[in-house]
């Protein structure tokens, strides 16, 4: 079947299988930032925005995205890089494999929360796992980016 979506601001029609997940559709169409780290909605690596809200694309059927506006990190490179620079300057990038999904959640948080507390930040980002950094460096970078140091 076919779904019609807006992908990073451009209209697209994707041919999909009934049981296909959005992460697979997006990867197949060249959005290689999309990674599946767990297949069980635990790790947050596959995070994209649907109508501006962070969603786990590995557990969303592609059909559910029909008619919706999808944003991947490929579509917000400028903002992503702004936060990525802070992350990298603090050495908190490490292997980088979880970063695109993490950054999509951080950018969504920036759009959603004003002056969040540390607890608010941790709550918002809990669904994004990272095995390298131990989270402290990520938290330092996020607080700097959110202007709540």
């Amino acid at each position, binding site marked *: 079947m076919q779904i019609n979506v807006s992908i990073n601001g451009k209209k697209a029609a994707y041919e999909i299988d009934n049981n296909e997940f959005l992460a697979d559709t997006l990867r197949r169409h060249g959005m*290689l930032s999309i990674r599946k780290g767990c297949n069980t909605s635990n790790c947050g690596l596959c995070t994209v925005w649907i109508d501006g809200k962070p969603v786990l694309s590995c557990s969303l059927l592609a059909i559910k995205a029909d008619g919706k506006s999808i944003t991947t990190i490929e579509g917000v490179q400028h903002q992503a890089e702004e936060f990525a620079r802070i992350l990298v300057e603090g050495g908190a990038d490490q292997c980088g494999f979880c970063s695109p999904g993490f950054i999509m959640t951080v950018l969504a948080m920036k759009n959603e929360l004003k002056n969040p507390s540390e607890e608010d930040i941790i709550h918002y980002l809990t669904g994004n796992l990272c095995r390298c*950094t*131990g989270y402290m460096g990520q938290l330092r970078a996020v607080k700097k980016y959110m202007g709540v140091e």
Partner: protein
Amino acid sequence: MKIVGKAIPKIDGLAITTGKPVYTEDLSTKDALVIKILRSPHAFAKITSIDVSKAQQVEGVECVLTYKDVPDARFTLAGQSYPEPSPYDRLILDQIVRYAGDEVAIIAAVDEKTALLAMKLIKVEYEVFEPVLDFEKSIGSSTVVHPEDDLHCNFDMGMEKGKNIVARQHIEYGNLEEEFKNCDVVVEETWYTQATAQSMMETHRSFSYLDHAGRLVVICSTQVPFHVKRMLSIALKLPSNKIRVIKPRIGGGFGAKQTACTEIFPALVTIKTGKPALIVQDRTETFMASTTRHAMRVKVKMGADKEGFIKVIDIHGLSDTGAYGEHGSTTVGLVASKTLPLYNKTKAIRFMAEVVYTNKTPGGAFRGYGATQGTFAVESTINKLAEKLSMDPSEIRLKNIIKEGENSLYHYDQMLGSTALHKCIDTGKKMIGWDSKYPRTVLGKNKVRAVGMAITMQGSGIEKVDMASAEVRLNDDGNYTLLIGSTDNGTGSDTIHAQMAAEVLEAGMDNITVLSADTDVSPFDPGSYASSGTYVTGMAVVKASEELKRKIVDSGAKLLDVPAENTEFCGDSVKVLNKDRSISIRTIAEKSVLGGMKNQLSGFASYGSPVSPPPFVAGFAEVEVDLETGKYDLIDYVAVADCGTIINSNLARIQLEGGIVQGIGMAMYEDVHYDYKGRLQTNSFMQYKIPSRRDVKQVRTAFEESYEPTGPFGAKSIGEVVINTPPPAIAHAVYNATGVWVSHLPITPEKVFMGMNR
């Protein structure tokens, strides 16, 4: 120093964080066959019949391979220097399957859907055997995991395969019986460390194709490209020079990718079909069919005099290597080699161990590599000993630990070149507030806060075994290319090596291009494991850079027509001493390739160390325990490290923080476990919990620098030592709060509760 020691951002940082296609799967081609593996549902069985005819008829299926279709050479998947100290006990596919998840058939198809459909059509009949699952019952069990005749070891490791024993160790110095007799206090305890999963975010994956010359190219997420190349050559019976292994960006390894879990399957398919092939393990497969930390039982007996000097330590280890022996004989050695040298007032030491097969997911490398297991057992025993002596646990350590210039019974022929461990302990105590908090503070009727501590050491590379090479070239434009075979798994080792080259050559980071790792291009390197990147490869980089610097000076002097000793290297130029004459590096570079010189300049060096200098960490935990339920929170963790000279302050800090959090996961909840039939139950992040950011309250770190005379700029390693302290420090804090020693990791609230109510 201008660049070493600074918080230089990782050279690949922006690309990897913003989603650029630089990892293995991103580099595969659209026409690549997709490989899926049919896995054994049984922990131990023999395939009595396997029918793939229906699967092969599915449109889009390229090939289905079984044990009948693969070469018959046994090999090991352990990425270790040849000849590997791991048994050659594997076939690519075997008629006998030895754990639930062991490979039964390889399916290659045009896409994943087709491969999975074909998998369902394979008919397998098994003769199911009784598995041996309890490693304490493995020796002498009627179940023999490896009965085959063609299994072979490169060394005599003490293998007795009829008894399921993979290896034995026995090291002994001094007269134990006599020393124990003379001790005022003796403590004896048995500790258990569980299997844990490395859980790097990028699961195992490999992609292969044939190049223009018909050679096999494998792009894979590995820590050990050169070892993978050799392994493929042995397993596939293919000449080594027909194989090229390329390591792109890697999504974490932590030791998991020191075992080649997937590379052989696409390689075999590509050879059979001539077509590109890709395998990507899903998370369940990576949990089930890669490796785990070796679960161990470690008995420690320790004696001291009444002043608190530790006179004798006796350790007996039993290690569970699962269905195959990867890293089995070596991990267990670190139980002793990374604990006994710390306490060098001993008059007698002994270490005995057996490594045994069971029908479970194989053991493998995981950050810490046996030192983690040994540290839990030995440090916990020392905490018990301190209590029995009525000594502060920090005091007993300060009294007994090795100092600079001293040796130990374990390393009687090696003097310790550097240590700031005493300072690490002092600083850590201050940071956690030890003197006011030890051992506990009662907050209310049921709430208690308490602190605990542990110290640890690791090594820096494998002494007398591993050797790395590096080449630095001066390019025609005056910039440098650094070629190394070391594998940056996300740690930032490429950046660190570039910093070292830039420091020696007095160049900017932008002037150094790093190329790693490609077995066709890179000089040999065993890979990134055993905490070797900064120290071993780093020394090769420094030496190669120094050689190039000498050549640049010589060439500059020649072009200036003065003796080399009358010139100096100034980073951007070579200058004549005390004169206003110089020649720029760029001009030297141009002339080396374009002018009359006809001699492009490069430096090449190899380095292997006769010693493995230990980095140290002192770790301090503070817990708050609910005495009614046993539930506890780790409210603070302080870790102070000595890794010699810090090459990159940011990256060292994140290594320390990240390693501590992995150690916290191991201490508190991570636990690989199986059902009664040997089927893995913790096969997703639903069941196998790694720390989330909500679980980690506070980790605070600091460094106390020492100067390691044998290391690059005085540096030692940092990568592994960081994981070792949390299990014993948290166990100690929980004990101080509750009076319960949890001797089986992980320290769950249930165990604390049961202990309090025993």
